[in-house]
């Protein structure tokens, strides 16, 4: 615990505060844009469905299918103001925050923090001082990992706090309807998503840790972590290859809507839009895959770091 305390003390730095502030600002801007989008879409939506003839859709079953799809889309657009209002309710905003931080924005923020907090020990030549004080390298690695993971949780907290404070104001300014869910339901939704995000953040943190022990520098760690995350998404986007990749494990475990289904007035994540639609592996498989990644990543990092020469 002393070592973890030391690592957390090191994280109390301007960069960490800057990343947290940037995460909060990102969430705020997204919320403002989402509120605006929802109102505009609802105002611009047609009151009645146009006929199949007007849309040059042949009569018969094809027309019926088109009408069903158009009706569903219209209902979704009309419901968006209420949906966004619900997403921005203070109690439920934790789910929105968890979804955003457990996806690409959070991954990139953790890449930055991993570079500064772990890779920076090599670039700043402080690793020798640290290991001279504490020779048990595996404990140093675990403390680094846990502190980075806690920093990721701090980003969720910053985003949630920003949304909880600004959400009701934005909803009022955009004339959104009041949320149609109770505080208890909102808290339950937030609790569930935040709890799921903990595992995803651990995966991002392990990738950052592994990148640091391999590249041994701040810039290399940032680049390698961000590169690994983007590669995960790229592989998952390949047709037929995305069924069992880390990116689909994240999407399944977090319950992100598949493919472009995640693109709404106020997106709940920036992840599944990059992944091709297809049968997801399921939550259990997602959990097992992500947990396995954390264990394997930590084991590989420990193996590399255990005998690595600290020459800087």
């Amino acid at each position, binding site marked *: 615990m*002393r*070592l973890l*305390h*030391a690592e957390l*003390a*090191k994280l109390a*730095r*301007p960069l960490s505060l800057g990343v947290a502030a940037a995460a909060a600002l990102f969430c705020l801007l997204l919320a403002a844009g989402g509120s605006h989008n929802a109102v505009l879409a609802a105002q611009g939506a047609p009151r009645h469905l146009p006929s199949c003839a007007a849309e040059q859709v042949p009569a018969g079953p094809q027309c019926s299918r088109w009408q069903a799809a158009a009706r569903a889309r219209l209902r979704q657009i009309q419901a968006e103001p209420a949906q966004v209002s619900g997403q921005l309710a203070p109690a439920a905003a934790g789910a929105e925050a968890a979804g955003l931080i457990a996806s690409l924005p959070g991954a990139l923020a953790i890449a930055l923090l991993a570079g500064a907090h772990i890779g920076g020990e090599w670039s*700043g*030549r*402080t690793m*020798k*001082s*640290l*290991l*001279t*004080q*504490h*020779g*048990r390298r595996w404990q140093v690695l675990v403390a680094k990992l846990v502190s980075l993971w806690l920093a990721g949780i701090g980003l969720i907290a910053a985003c949630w706090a920003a949304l909880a404070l600004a959400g009701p104001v934005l909803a009022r300014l955009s004339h959104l309807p009041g949320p149609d869910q109770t505080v208890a339901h909102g808290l339950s939704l937030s609790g569930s998503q935040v709890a799921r995000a903990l595992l995803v953040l651990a995966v991002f943190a392990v990738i950052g840790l592994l990148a640091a022990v391999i590249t041994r520098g701040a810039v290399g760690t940032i680049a390698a972590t961000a590169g690994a995350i983007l590669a995960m998404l790229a592989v998952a986007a390949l047709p037929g290859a995305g069924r069992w990749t880390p990116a689909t494990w994240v999407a399944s475990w977090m319950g992100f809507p598949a493919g472009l289904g995640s693109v709404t007035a106020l997106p709940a994540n920036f992840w599944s839009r990059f992944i091709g639609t297809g049968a997801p592996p399921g939550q259990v498989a997602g959990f097992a895959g992500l947990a396995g990644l954390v264990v394997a990543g930590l084991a590989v990092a420990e193996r590399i770091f255990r*005998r690595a*020469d*600290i*020459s800087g």
Partner: protein
Amino acid sequence: MTSVIRCEGLTKRYRGVTALDGLDLDVGPGQVFGFLGPNGAGKTTTLRILLGLVTPTAGRAWVNGRPAGDPDGLAGVGAMIEEPAFYPWLTGRRNLEVLALSGPPLPGPAGQIGRVLAAAGLGAAADRKVKGYSQGMRQRLGLAAALMRDPSLLLLDEPANGMDPAGIAEFRTLLRSLAGRGITVFLSSHLLAEVEQICDQVAVLRSGRLVEQGPVAGLATARARVRVVLDPADHRAALALLAPWAARPDGPDAVLVDWTDGQAVTRALGQGGVWPHQVVLDRPALEEAFLTMIEDTAAVNDATASR
């Protein structure tokens, strides 16, 4: 006598480059031990191996009776390797607090960090951010970090770098007082004049090999020579008469002889009809002895290589 530091055949190769080549070393307790050598001789590599930061390619080392790098053995070691690095966004005091938290609890009563900061001469600057420290202040903070756990062994790598003359004098006094309290100080330095004033024993390293080890006074005496001042007209004759003792010119009116017996030199010159103005036993500074040793070793190595 129990060794505080012991190395047996310590070797380190980095991608085919030999940084350390079969180093055998024995350092007893309660002394200031100088570790000398030119850049790239393997001094820092040795210190890193002793601290467990670098794994040797071959050989073994022990610190305080435990294998080098053993976490329990490190608890009694304070170290400052090369230019010490700190977290620039934290104050000097906070840096030490973070380092203290990174290891076992500090010994002694509360306030240990304040005491070592004051001992290192940083009491007034302790609450300033390290990014504003000069190099000398960072060296002092490194020394404070090394002393924070009341170590029985101090490993210091070029500790006086960047310090002003007053700081170096304070530092010298501090190291002698630490040795007086039974703490072993292992000091790697290229400031040979400093080593000469501080150290009890010296080891000289070159190209990863131990060239010589012994008491500072003995090391310099071993290189003592006689300087003969004479009339320039007798210069050539004196060089010929003293040739068996490897005499060499030292300006137009002097000859240096690698021999410590002034009487024998005077007799040899007198028997040849050369009468010197002065015959002086010349005890070179450690720096000169050190350079001579390195040149000698280089010559031996070159000769060996050319065979």
